[in-house]
């Protein structure tokens, strides 16, 4: 290119602008990351280090938080502990140092499994229902289409917790309270409106010629939907799935209200840990750290779709 020395380009941001924008991004990242870093660090502190003031940045790492998270312990006299054999495993050793013995596993793992089943189950259901209805709204002449879409959106206009009491009573009557199925249905019904609206946008962007071509080539509409529309909607479906999963994974209020023994998820369980034998912040932090893992993994797996999904449709082609 014959580049005449131009003082500046009219479309490219200048170096100053770029540096300024860059430092804003870094600043924002630091601010949002600090609580996460804090939680992860606390998970590896001993209970004393966790509550020391001023807070310790440098400390001797300990797995006590994780041990306390996964086990229940009972306090014993030193004589009794001495009468036992050598400690069984790492956690037993840590417990004995505090004059305790491991009494059994805690409820964290079952609660975590509940969270996985409920969050992923409701996400799959919401995205499946959302994709089908978004396709219908996008492609067919639905009577009262605009009103129906508005109605679907309107279910998100009130805070979900506003209907907590009616739902509690309903669930108690029909036997859905404290069941995984009940929680899956509840989160699905909250998420499905988001899924319909997000996915309708994505499916609207897919030219209908694709399905028409497939239908002329010999597919039924449903086959054309599965073989032609779905592959092109993957981006939108992935982005929608992440939004749905984040909601269902983090949901706290309904989980507190509607679950206790059977179907309790991790969010209402984690704060309960505090109560067992003093304020055990490392155990809480360990529970929170592990709780972050699935969503991080899921997001990382789908990140290339997510990035495209969020900016999808902003610029044609």
């Amino acid at each position, binding site marked *: 290119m014959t580049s005449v020395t131009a003082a500046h380009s009219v479309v490219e941001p200048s170096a100053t602008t770029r540096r300024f924008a860059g430092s804003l991004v870094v600043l924002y990242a630091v601010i949002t990351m600090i609580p996460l870093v804090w939680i992860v660090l606390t998970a590896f502190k001993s209970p004393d280090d966790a509550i020391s003031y001023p807070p310790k940045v440098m400390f001797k790492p300990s797995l006590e938080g994780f041990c306390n998270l996964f086990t229940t312990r009972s306090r014993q006299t030193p004589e009794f502990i001495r009468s036992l054999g050598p400690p069984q495993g790492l956690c037993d050793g840590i417990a004995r140092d505090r004059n305790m013995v491991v009494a059994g596993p805690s409820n964290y793992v079952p609660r975590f499994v509940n969270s996985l089943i409920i969050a992923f189950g409701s996400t799959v259901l919401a995205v499946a229902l959302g994709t089908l209805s978004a396709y219908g709204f996008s492609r067919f002449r639905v009577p009262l289409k605009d009103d129906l879409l508005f109605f679907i959106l309107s279910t998100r206009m009130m805070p979900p917790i506003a209907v907590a009491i009616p739902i509690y009573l309903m669930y108690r009557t029909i036997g859905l309270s404290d069941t995984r199925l009940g929680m899956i249905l509840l989160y699905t019904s909250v998420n499905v409106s988001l899924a319909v609206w997000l996915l309708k946008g994505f499916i609207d962007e897919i030219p209908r010629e694709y399905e*028409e071509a497939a239908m*002329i080539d010999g597919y039924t509409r449903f086959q054309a939907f599965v073989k032609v529309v779905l592959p*092109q909607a993957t981006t939108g479906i992935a982005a929608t799935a992440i939004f749905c999963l984040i909601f269902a994974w983090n949901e706290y209020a309904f989980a507190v209200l509607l679950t206790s023994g059977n179907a309790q998820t991790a969010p209402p369980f984690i704060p309960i840990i505090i109560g067992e034998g003093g304020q055990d912040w490392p155990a809480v932090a360990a529970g929170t750290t592990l709780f972050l893992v699935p969503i991080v993994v899921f997001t990382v797996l789908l990140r290339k779709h997510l990035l495209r999904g969020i900016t999808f449709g902003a610029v044609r082609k």
Partner: protein
Amino acid sequence: MAQIRVEALDKSFGAFHAVKSASFTVEDSQFLCLLGPSGCGKTTTLRMIAGLELPTSGTIRLDGEDVTMNRASARDIAFVFQLFALYPHMNVRHNIGFPLKCEGISAAERDRRVVEAARILRISHLLDRSVSGLAGGDRQRVALGRAIVRKPKCFLMDEPLGALDTEMREAMIHELRALHDRLGATTVYVTHDQLEAMAMADRIAVMNNGVVEQVATPRDIYDRPASLFVADFIGSPPMNFLPFRAGLQTGAEAIRLGERDVAIPAAREAMAESELVLGVRPEHVRFTDRGMVRGEVYGTEYLGTTQIVTVTTHYGALKARSPSSRSFRTGETVGLDFRPDTLSIFDKASGRAIRTALHEGGAHG
């Protein structure tokens, strides 16, 4: 291959009447263009033939069989879309082979036919490329490949060249016509471009406001337009219209235009005194000093071998095509004469062409 018969086809979208009682027949291995301005119902008509829309009323027959309410996939037709509609998640080979896969044809046979289609369209070297990297003309060839690979009863094409640039379009017009001649496939081709229609079609169906105005060969459409709309839509510049008021006797060979008599093809029907329109193509206007219409030269457009001269007359601005060797001065007074055997006469109220000797000896009735 097959004959397509469209009988009294009607389509309404709510209050909008898109196609009004359209009827025409496409004979076996004929190339028919549906031509008309945007919104005239030509694409809707094509989509009804394809089975992508269901008509409000009327019948569509493929080789005599009533397929009006059949599913698109049950009609054995191929459709080429304006925006190609290539599946972006498949490469060229899979795109072309897709219809065969739908039919459940074995992989070996599929591959053989894909390779053959690619050879006909000269895209063999592109078979393993992704469709997203292809140029417009190549994409259109892939779309055509997907259509021809199945050997369907007929091809339906919805402005397939609309998305190409001018140069590519010219080349593809000839390629499409050559392809049609080789395959002998019944084809219905929708376009708003009269040059495409003129260059490719065996017959043209001109549509306007949902009505089929005329179905005829390109030559008849041009020389013997059946309505004011057809006369105005076809031809560039369009036909000149000179309004006059007169009655018409069967056998009359002249009309009274202002002070003078103008010779016309002999009338074959009588008209009571009414508002009529004399239609004359620019190339049928001659400059003579004894001309029956006089006017002032308003301006000229140079087109190479010919030029278009606009003359302001008592009847409005008339356009005449003249060899570009002749020079005109703006403001010059000229006399105009019309070639009598080529003139059309229209009833202004209905827009219908009045039957004259012009309509005899033509290929159509």
